[in-house]
């Protein structure tokens, strides 16, 4: 089975802190994605990557950056956390030719106080 793991299920950080969210997949997928999910707004794409060291902005990249140094690992960075970044963060991966068939991690619920 495809497995996508995220470094934390729950995280509490203070305003202004730098936050790292890590995601690892074990199926040699080319594509990796970061979403945030908020009530009433659904899943929104923050960034995605289709290859090592490659990244593309999604719909809401402001306040975030990403890093993909290895194929299996995709990191989301909040440079200076703010309270409006309190959310559920979901990582996903897929094969490049099956971008619609994404495998998700369990999510990280981040609270910024």
């Amino acid at each position: 089975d495809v497995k996508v793991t995220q470094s934390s299920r729950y995280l509490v950080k203070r305003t202004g802190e730098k936050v790292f969210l890590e995601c690892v997949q074990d199926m040699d997928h080319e594509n990796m994605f970061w979403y945030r999910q908020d009530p009433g707004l659904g899943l929104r794409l923050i960034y995605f990557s289709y290859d090592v060291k490659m990244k593309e902005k999604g719909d809401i990249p402001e306040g975030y950056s990403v890093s993909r140094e290895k194929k299996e690992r995709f990191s989301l960075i909040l440079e200076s956390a703010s309270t409006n970044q309190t959310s559920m963060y979901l990582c996903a991966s897929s094969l490049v030719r099956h971008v619609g068939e994404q495998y998700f991690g369990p999510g990280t619920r981040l609270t910024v106080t």
Partner: protein
Amino acid sequence: TQLLEQSPQFLSIQEGENLTVYCNSSSVFSSLQWYRQEPGEGPVLLVTVVTGGEVKKLKRLTFQFGDARKDSSLHITAAQPGDTGLYLCAPRGGSEKLVFGKGTKLTVNP
């Protein structure tokens, strides 16, 4: 900009009832995915439909892709409490990205 609407937004039914949820858009899709998300977990892919008019069955779940590839429906027969969750449609319009609907939150009461 693609407009994507899922309906109903919330649905609460008794075990054994049938239900249908809908996913509609103004755009034509190359494919459409349905996902189910249980509380506290990430979405899990249920099915992909590609051809207009296509019908796929997954046990008690029946998925249909509209003839014009602009809409889709999910029908559940004899719903069970284990079907409880958020059902998300995610069409693909030809880019590397999916657009997720806001979902239908289904509760099946025993």
